[in-house]
């Protein structure tokens, strides 16, 4: 079932923890948040929230074995 824009707005407004935002991403895109290679969780969360708002999946990146 796809969320309507209003449902998406409602659900985003209800998010409180980092996990809530990740779960909403999974609900919308039917797949978990891919590795972004950000050591800073705050920046990773930005990417997740922007993906939800823009309705665009986060592209999967090939990360080096040892990042940051």
């Amino acid at each position, binding site marked *: 079932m796809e969320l309507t824009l209003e449902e*998406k*707005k409602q659900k*985003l*407004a209800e*998010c*409180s*923890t*980092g*996990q809530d*935002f990740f779960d909403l991403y999974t609900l919308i895109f039917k797949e978990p948040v891919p*590795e972004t*290679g950000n*050591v*800073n*969780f*705050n*920046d990773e*969360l*930005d990417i997740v*929230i922007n993906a*939800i*708002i*823009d309705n665009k999946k986060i592209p999967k990146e090939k*990360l*080096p*074995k*040892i*990042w*940051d």
Partner: protein
Amino acid sequence: MATRQEILSQLADDHEKRISKVLFDLEDDIIAELESATRQVTLNTDLAIQLRPNLKRLIEENYLKEGTRIVSDYDKVVKEYQNFIKTTPIADKFKTLTKPDLAIINQLKQLSFSGFQDVANRFLDEISTEVYKSAIVGKPFPDMVRTIRGQINGVYQRSNEEAINRLVRVVEENKYSNDPAAIKKTQDATKILQTKYAADRVGNNMKKYASQIAHDSLMQFDGQFTKYKAQEAGLTQFKYVGTNITTTREFCRRQLDKVFTEEEAREVWSQSWKGKSGGDPFIDRGGYRCRHSFIPYDTAWDNIDEVQQKVDPKKTRKKRVEPEKEVKPKSLVPDIAIGNLLNRGSSKVRKAYDDDFNSQLTDQQKNIVNKIEKPAIIKNGKKGYYSPSDNELSAELNAINKSKNAPDEIKGVKSFVIAHEYGHHIDYVTSGKTFRAWSRDNEDFKRAIQKDKRKFKGTNIVDGKIDPTNSKDGYFSINDDEALDRIFNDLATKIEVTIDKGGFSYTRKFTELREDGYAEVSDIIDALFKGRFRKNYYMWGHTPSYWGRAGSVEEEIFANLFAIKHNEKAYNLAKKYIPNTVKEFEKRLIELERL
């Protein structure tokens, strides 16, 4: 000599105490009135209606009368403003009160008094309604009395039990103190009172609102008058002043002693935080019952002792006796050049890269780096990484750890990413094995990490089963949220912000690291907690799947220790959290130095 802020605080406490006292009197008077009115006749709806003017009179005689006295006290706020402003070098004509000033003061006082009137009207309605409703349904008199007592003073209402009254007195005597023992007494007594009245606890009582109005009206009057006078004098900057106590909001803690223009203050105050009461920095400050305030300020006044005596005399005294800052001795080991290995960059960038790298190393580390083969390629890239197979390293010049979209007032701290990635390089090329890190295979280092992990609460797993004996063998999985809370407080603070974007509105947290190198310390903790620190606390670290790769925990801890070795604060925290691992790391540095 008390500062302007201390006097404001004392006044606010005094006003609250006075309101508290009159509410006890009001409670007694209202109950006496009801008892007297129903001595001969049973309470009925006609009597209930007749009682309303009497209740109104009692509220006016007790509460509003005290409110009038309190508001007239606001002249002391004006006087304190004048005492402060006369120490500043502004033109004399702005240091006195003019006729229009007096008119403004009166208007502001009227505005403040209307807050007291609102509370009076609201509770007159509530109490009268309770009397009327009790008459209709025939509620027993003692039950009605108890409800009305609760409407006025909540759990602090008068009781027939002396033990309860004693607890109320304990709260009244200790609640305005900052002494930890007094705070504890207040908390304990309140807890018992809340338990006692749990069944019929009245949350929105008059005491709660009246005390808050008494406090906030005074501070709001101060904020508005100060702003008005500053504007008149053409002063455009304001300092946020006050003290830190245990209940100080994180937001206020961050803004204290900062100097803002009005525009900057309004921008900072537009965010959300817990306890915020409104968006005007000068009126609402940190929110309900906030004890902080703005004073007009100019950074040029920093060196005027008379001004500082009024703002913060402790700091003035400290400033006078402070010894000269110790100058760090210059390194005896020549700087190491790695800027020449950058795949691209001007000579200026290469030089800056060298400077940044060398600032992240101790002399011992420089000696080690000098002895060991350098990476083949270095990139000044946004994303940090080390690739052993290509002997390539990427680290950003002058990297700052701050979230990209964090609010402006969050300050960034230095990240020691060049030393971190170079730490990986040293770890790999000195192992004696191809594409394999020393830390991954060194038994003492690995054991030290396991030993440090066992300082936390957790579960020992042996052969896939929980080992209740917690033997030294097996894999130890940490589960210690209390420790994480403490460590988070050591390393960072958090703020909550509501963001409106593209028609969406959401609330999220942002983390601010307290000091340089604390992202590296965070990564060490995240390694021990396998990604939970990063994700649950909005910190710096790696993902659970990254920590699932064999060797990742040991390698990252090694690289992080290498990165923060030169920074006393960050390194001391690492010693506190993982003392055994730090010991093994230091042993390794000595070995490498002797190579």
